[in-house]
């Protein structure tokens, strides 16, 4: 299969690579760019573990081809907080409220929560539950995740008013 040259900015770093047109964006991120913080739990678009930000929008990287991201700017879990710097409010919330156990679904939840909170800075619990209902977690029972997102909204508000 003939390969195509693409260039994608991920977490503010430029990645150029030759990929087969059929290679998924998730596999490109994980294998070609060795950013393994993005996880694959179904590879058919249901679980949300592979969620990343593509030009700011949350997308499922298992459902896209790498060539479709040519020229785009992506954020994965590794790029949310500066290396060695403070966690984001969402990460902080997950830590404080036991929003993860095995951590396999976590990349998708954290990225989805970032996108969700940007659009709903002051969400109700019901809105959080609806907003994250497209992500699956098998460990936590979700309670810690919902609390984590509530806490993240609170931290963000405190930061703004401080």
């Amino acid at each position, binding site marked *: 299969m003939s390969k195509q040259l693409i260039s994608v900015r991920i977490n503010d770093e430029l990645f150029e690579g030759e990929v087969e047109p059929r290679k998924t964006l998730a596999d490109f991120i994980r294998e070609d760019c060795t950013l393994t913080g993005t996880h694959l*739990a179904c590879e058919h678009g249901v679980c949300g573990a592979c969620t990343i930000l593509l030009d700011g929008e949350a997308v499922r990287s298992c459902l896209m081809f790498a060539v479709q991201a040519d020229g785009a700017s992506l954020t994965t879990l590794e790029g949310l907080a500066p290396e060695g710097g403070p966690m984001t409010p969402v990460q902080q919330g997950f*830590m404080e409220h036991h929003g993860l156990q095995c951590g396999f679904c976590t990349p998708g939840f954290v990225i989805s929560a970032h996108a969700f909170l940007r659009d709903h800075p002051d969400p109700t619990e019901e809105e959080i539950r609806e907003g994250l209902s497209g992500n699956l977690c098998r460990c936590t029972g979700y309670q*810690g995740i919902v609390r984590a997102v509530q806490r993240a909204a609170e931290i963000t508000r405190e930061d703004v008013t401080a």
Partner: protein
Amino acid sequence: MSTVEKPSAARFVGARVQRREDPRLLSGHGQYIDDVRLPGMLHATFVRSPLARARIVAIDLEHALAVPGVVAIWDGSALNGDAATPLWDWAGEGTPFPEVRALAEGDVRFAGDPVAIVIARDRYVAEDAAELVDVEYEPLQAVVGRELAEASTGRAHDGIDTNVAWSAASPTDPALEAAFAASAHVITETFRQQRHVNVPMEPRGLVAHWERGAEQLTVYASSQNPHQDREYFARVMGLPEHHVRVIMRDVGGGFGQKIFRTREETAVALASRRLGRPVKWIEDRQENLMAANHARDEQMTLRVGVDADGVITAIHASHLADVGAYPLMPAMMPGFMALEVLPGPYRFARYGWAGKSVFTNTSGISAYRGPWMMETVAREIMMDVVAREIGVDPAEIRRRNVIQTEDLPYTTPTGREYDRISPAQTLEAALEEIGYERFREEQARARAEGRYLGLGISTYIEPTAGAQGPTGIEAATVRVEPSGKVNVLMGTGSHGHSLETTMVQVVADQLGVPIEDVRLLQGDTAVSPYGGGTAGSRSAVIAGGVARISAIKLREKVLELAGHLLEAAAADLEIEDGTITVKGSPGSSIAFADVARIAYYDPSRLPEGMEPGLESTSRYSAPPATYANSTQVCTCEVDVATGEVRLLDYVVGEDCGVMINPMVVEGQIAGGVAQGIGGALLEHLAYDETGNPLAITFKDYLLPTTEDVPDIRYVHVETPSNTPGGHKGVGEGGAIGAPAAIVNAVADALAPLGVRVTSQPLSPDRVLAMIDDARSA
């Protein structure tokens, strides 16, 4: 060690300490199996049977081998002979068992049976080639359905002339029959539980690396117990155990599915040895749902004798399990465990049982969070059936039968000995927290308005930390390094249950050092002493117990050395926050780090006869079981127009002894309850009558989401166990108790319509059908 003395300064055990694993996992730097990359690594995929039962007539590899990038393709006849022994064998007197080989050979026995392994330079190429492997099958009659298997004219396995894998019963007991005859009521009902899949979010996978020259196999595993894996690979590959190393780093959930190594994983290890190169296999979700081991798929019939006051005087249970084609545990296990645990939290004086397991042409059964939990499902739904039938309140009937503190110690009819349990207390605590009386009033008002609200109770005793054979012991090496920092080496592994935090809490308390100064190293057989790994809710009790024992032993040495240096008696010293002080004279102290440095670098300052260094290794052999108890109570509303069940409130009253970290305890319970909700309302790995699986994507196998799992409230009762830290297991209880609580809530809601609920999942279509059936009855 019979009592629980509190550590001298209990600062971490009992506290909601934030998790040590989180910064790594939250920043994308976990190390899961698919993140492992080795130089020269190849990728494997499997050709699988599309049929449940068929003869393999011919396998044509020609086109597949021609795909550029393909390195090798082997079928069963080519690869199986590399194994030194059958992969596992549970055959015994009256319990036949098939020969388990890495790949199918001659015939296939379930849809998904691995027929050939394809090795290529990347997974895309491997999958391309797998598509081109041409297998000719001659279909045979498949054995499908647990209630049909025994009478089927088909056979699940060649060479085994019955589909009955195990059958046994308690001896005839005239006293039991007499008790039934004397009962005011005898009630019989059958309860059914559908086939589930554990569904860890990370599917199965491994990387096997055969190192030529060293003649050593290194396996990176997505596992629950690296030391048992080492023993497994050594045995099936015919290797000495010290030439096998198993490493598990972060694992994306297991829930029982990753206890045992499977046929595919074995094939990958054999392939790596043939090629002398690392080989990686990561299954996809369809494979996980189709061919990784399944669970539940069982039914239990209870016959119960009750006296006029609602006291149960006789009970008989008979269990039937479908264990699939190649169960990963003995065929007796689901039934025998369930039947043995069934008396649970009640004073059932007379008990008899019968159990049977059948082979079918479906994916094999293995452990799933509380693999015996059918006992709670059947018993607790039956308690409500009885209550309804004889007109007693369901809370009240439990009160009349539950074991009270004054009954302890108590021995069940199956010989289990309860000592430090509190089932009556957790029952009352949960009922009070949910507001039982108030809910009954609300329910009556709702009924008057034509709304269907219900409440369900589920009470149980969980045998945790079962300790025998390979899971009997845990070990901990606690090592203070020359700088005073502490490494703890244990044979455990990490798949979500927070041991990197909880074990460190235990050790930091005993050594009196800041928690940041202690780190757990686990999951690597080259680093850690032997341990049984994770299964049966054993980590808090056995691993937590030995971490404590080993840390106490080391603390004694630290104090002896410090006493020598400070010219004080060890008994007069205390360690707090990394400083050792003579009690009452704060001026006389030495830093923990200084003691460590002297222990390693300045042996002349050690007391006479003391070995240099600061390290202790202990092993702990736990009691056969440590009992936890719990009551779950939930409320729901059923929409009788749509069949939708909505959970309104959820309370778990539980006694897991001394909690190391209540946040982790609650997380374990919540996760288990969510899995129970899935099983009660959504999940079903159905097969059609030809053995074709019907739910092999997440669009068909429905997991609960944020919208299905309500907030759960907890009431903790802490009765210390008779083990070193006073802990009890808590990993499985949530999953054990939830289905019965939910079924009972739905049955309670629909009782005015005459609906009986005896099976799951309570999906909207099935709820509507039950309502229709009741109306037309």
